């Protein structure tokens, strides 16, 4: 995943799981002919925008910190 800057497997899982749970990543990835990297980067941008973070499309440390905070289980985008 080139969108994962530090390449740590644990962080990849955290980001993937977070975007899957709260940003419909899995469903959007099921669509045919999608560019996986671009979908994930787009989801990251959505998340960064909502949380008032710098919108990079990358899972930078600030984004990871925000993802590790306790949160409500309701998705941030409509399913």
């Amino acid at each position, binding site marked *: 995943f080139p969108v994962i800057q530090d390449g740590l497997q644990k962080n990849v899982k955290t980001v993937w799981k977070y975007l899957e749970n709260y940003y419909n990543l899995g469903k959007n990835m099921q669509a045919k002919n999608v560019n996986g990297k671009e979908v994930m980067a787009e989801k990251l941008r959505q998340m960064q925008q*909502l949380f*008032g973070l710098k919108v990079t499309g990358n899972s930078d440390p600030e984004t990871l910190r925000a993802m590790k*905070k306790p*949160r*409500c*289980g*309701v998705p941030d985008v*409509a399913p």
Partner: protein
Amino acid sequence: YAITHNNPRWTKTHLTYSILNYTPYLSKAVVEDAIARAFRVWSDVTPLTFQRVFEEEGDIVLSFHRGDHGDLYTFDGSKYHFAHAFLPGLGLGGNVHYDLDQKWTDNNEDFNLFYVTAHELGHSLGLSHSNDEEALMFPSYTWSNKDFVLNQDDINRIQALYGPSPNPIQLTDATLDPCNSGLTFDAIITYRGEVIFFKDRFYIRVISFLPEPLIDVIDLTWPNLPGKFDAAYEVSGVDELRFFKGSKVWAVQEQNVLEGFPMDIQSFFGFPSNVTNIDAAVCEEETGKTYFFVDHMYWRYDENTRSMDPGYPRLIAEDFPGIDYKVDDVIQKEDNFYFFHQSIQYRFNLKTRRIDDSSDINTWFNC
């Protein structure tokens, strides 16, 4: 305002709720009180009314669950997902689920049941998450104190769905009584000759030619400010107000927050990183020097050069003899600094460098 997909909302204004079970960490009475208060958060600002029912299932059912509990949102006992709710509708619609394995509290420790319930009920009523970090509907858990005030963003969004309350909270004596002895304020400023006192979501204006002070809501005048400030001051030279909350500063001209704000006080003023909030601030009109009070120390900032003066911080009590207490607020009127500590004010003469009067704070309000 952004609401959820297809804008689901309840079509009736009187809703019932039922509590299916309880957390072992709190007494039933505490749980019931927290839930009732959470409903009031929303009924205070909308035409919605809520009634608890016992014999039947309410429109909104609140319940505690462990692990996989039959919906798509499995709990795992981790702090990353402790509750969820469903949008308005039949069956599961509107229901609130809490993770049974979380330690639910009625204090500042994780997770405060009242705060989480108020947030989840926002979903039950049709709201999605907000991108306003100060809002109740921000997705991350941000509870830090008991003094809960519903954010204007939440009010705007819920009123976009249901309209305003027919009985809005009245700005009466019951809400904020300026003549109440023992009254304290979050921040006090001078502004174009008036003195303005801030308390929670309200402010009181003292206008010299009016016999009584005026009380208003901060959000109505400054909708882009967070409210419940730590400190504020006027820079009369540039007709600017600056408001502080935590380590952030908002610069304001009239009703508008200036572009680029809020900013960190460290980067804007040059505070060291260990200064994370300001108790009080005042700009001396004649010199353009701003005094920032933090615990028992103060810093001096030059508004003209936009830099901290060297040699600071210094002890407050050393340079302002008699000010031995933590400073809550400070303003300047003529040749005096008025230092406020709890409900008492001390008039400090800047020429003689001594306190020449002290009185109750509500002497400002012609009580």
